[in-house]
């Protein structure tokens, strides 16, 4: 099995980085930690992308906007004075309903169309959702509270401190949810009949019909699930940045998440996790190195604008040119 090997190598590399970074002044260690933590959020969105790709063989560009939509629903229900947990449930349910509706109206009629058409259709969905958000909620930023407050009773930052970086409770919750959902999905695809049926549909929809599996039912299931996953990711991520604006998840998360999924091989659930971690660390350490770089006596100050986005572009290009099937993918 490749998964444990790749996981071990990645963990060893990050460990080595932390070990060498420990002696460096203004060193990379908080950045590495931050990168790993960001990686979990990328992985969470990447899970939704992998799910849709496994089920229907298309890239879902609307996955990020499902997250923004979930966050807006949560914001709306919180302003109505509902308790947080009920807000989350209603927000996920609301996004789920919209995902199912979009599947029925847009995706189902295109089920026989070329994959590139479905890709353009998901782009149209994402843009339309952004447009509706702008029309209803306006461009003004809003703030969304965390599940647990980021400050404890004494007014100090809550959470645990690792390598000079305080990790908020929200990130720890995101990590837990991510691990739980990833495990659940892996179990679902490998151990349940429904999961196998979904995989079969994506591989050969005609043969699946012949053995009596309803293709529309599978499509509905996949898009509903991915909308719910997207909403959960949005609800967990937006309080971390604190500001909720239209298209926030598409702008900040969708591209790193896609890159994470591609690194992992697009069909691999552990791959989404590993790709997310790699992208998070590369981006964060790249930002540190692009800002200033100390080695021994010398310090280089390189201010490269947008180094995080540049890192993603370089990583994605290299992975696709050198190993298009990704680290853990079974097919290109």
């Amino acid at each position, binding site marked *: 099995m490749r998964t444990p090997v790749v996981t071990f190598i990645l963990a060893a590399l990050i460990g080595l980085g932390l070990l060498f970074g420990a002696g460096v002044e203004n060193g990379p260690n908080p950045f590495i930690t931050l990168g790993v933590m960001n990686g979990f959020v990328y992985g969470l969105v990447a899970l939704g992308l992998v799910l849709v790709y496994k089920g229907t063989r298309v890239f879902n560009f609307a996955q990020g906007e499902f997250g923004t939509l979930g966050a807006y629903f949560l914001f709306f229900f919180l302003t109505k004075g509902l308790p947080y947990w009920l807000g989350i449930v209603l927000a996920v349910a609301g996004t789920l309903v919209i995902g199912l509706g979009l599947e029925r109206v847009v995706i189902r009629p295109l089920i026989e169309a070329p994959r*590139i058409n479905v890709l353009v259709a998901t782009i149209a969905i994402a843009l339309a959702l952004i*447009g509706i958000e702008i029309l209803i909620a306006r461009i003004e930023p809003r703030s969304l509270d965390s599940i647990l407050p980021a400050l404890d009773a004494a007014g100090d930052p809550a959470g645990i401190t690792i390598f000079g970086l305080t990790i908020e409770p929200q990130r720890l919750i995101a990590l837990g949810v991510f691990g739980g959902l990833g495990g659940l999905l892996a179990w679902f695809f490998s151990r349940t009949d429904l999961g196998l049926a979904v995989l079969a549909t994506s591989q050969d929809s005609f043969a699946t019909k012949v053995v009596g599996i309803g293709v529309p039912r599978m499509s509905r299931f996949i898009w509903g699930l991915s909308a719910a996953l997207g909403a959960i990711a949005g609800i967990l991520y937006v309080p971390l940045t604190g500001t909720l604006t239209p298209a926030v998840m598409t702008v900040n998360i969708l591209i790193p998440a896609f890159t994470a999924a591609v690194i992992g091989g697009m069909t691999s659930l552990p791959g989404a996790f590993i790709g997310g971690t790699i992208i998070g660390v590369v981006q964060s350490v790249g930002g540190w190195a692009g800002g200033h770089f100390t080695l021994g006596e010398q310090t280089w100050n390189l201010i490269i604008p947008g180094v995080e*986005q540049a890192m993603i572009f370089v990583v994605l290009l290299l992975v696709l040119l050198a190993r298009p099937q990704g680290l853990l993918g079974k097919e290109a």
Partner: protein
Amino acid sequence: MTATDIAPPVDESTVVLPAVKEPTRWRPNTRGWAIRIAVIAALVIVLGVRLATLGGLWADHISQAVIFAIIGLSLNVILGYTGQVSLGHHAFVGLAAFVAAHHITERAGCLPEEGCQYAPMGGFAVAVGLAILSGIIASGLLGIVALRIKGLYLALITLTYGFFAVNSIFEIPSLTRGGAGMPAPRPKLLITDHRFMVFCLAALAVCLFIDWRFLASRIGRAVLAVKNSEAVAASYAVNVTAYKLMAFMLSGAFAGLAGALFAYRRQIVVSNDFRFESALLWVLMVVVGGLGKRTGVVIGSMFFALFPYLIDLVTPLSDFLANLDRDPEEFTLVIGPALALITMIISPGGIAEQIRPITNWLAGNRFTMHPDGGSHHKPSLLAKLRNRSAPAAEESS
């Protein structure tokens, strides 16, 4: 071309009757031609008079629509002719706009803060040339990537490239002057909006001509063959690499020209003008216009550009929006994608398919709703029977 298109050899001994000579293409008679030419002339005169007497504000709107049309043609080359998706076109157009503005202000030395009002004509020409060149280079690089990476993954690469360009290249202060924007003064000849509109229309005409010759020539046929199947095209000795790169570079040249016009229309380039939403909207406007159909693409792109101003013309609608405190421009982000989805689900041919009976008639064919477009004469039953011995020949006519 597939192998089955080649007519099987006709066995001479089985041909009982001599083959009927079929009229290969229906043509209108003199009266028919006269009516068509009269209609086209009337259209040209009405449009020409209307455009010539246009106020400055609407001339500016039309310039924007024409720039959108050129961007649409650029995307159409990639989407319609090579079958790939570019989601990073805002980066190509933006880079060209900045190159054009940078040349005028920094190289040709026309700085508005030093009292320079009009760009020198020579500098303007070089700036437009450099912008086109930058588009060709950027798009050619994408073409090289596209030799290896295709389909969904190429779309992802272009999207990532767009984000990288906007956040990195467009933030380089010496090229873009940060958030303040790079001025791009026009030359004296084009200083009014009306003259600039005429210049844009001329640029669009040149693009349409190049696009037409590109597709109608050997190159276009080779590019379409590569789109259908690279393996089959290669086996017909089509140089897949060269033709793919050629298509991407043509698209880059159009994008570069559009970028230069973009810069001079507003006379200032701000990096905030180029957001990923616009690149995605541009893809959708090509889909609405009709993939691979230049008339439809131009109409679709112009509609997307003019949509907010058209809403303003409809007083009840604009009053309604003003009451809601909503800007018509915000509706483009909802109406555009909705139109694209409707197009893809109900009528994948787009606007081009809807207006095809009219464009076909104007081009000298019969007015028909038939999907074949009436360009080919339907063989009579008798001719079919007589030519039965060579059935493949009639189908490939």
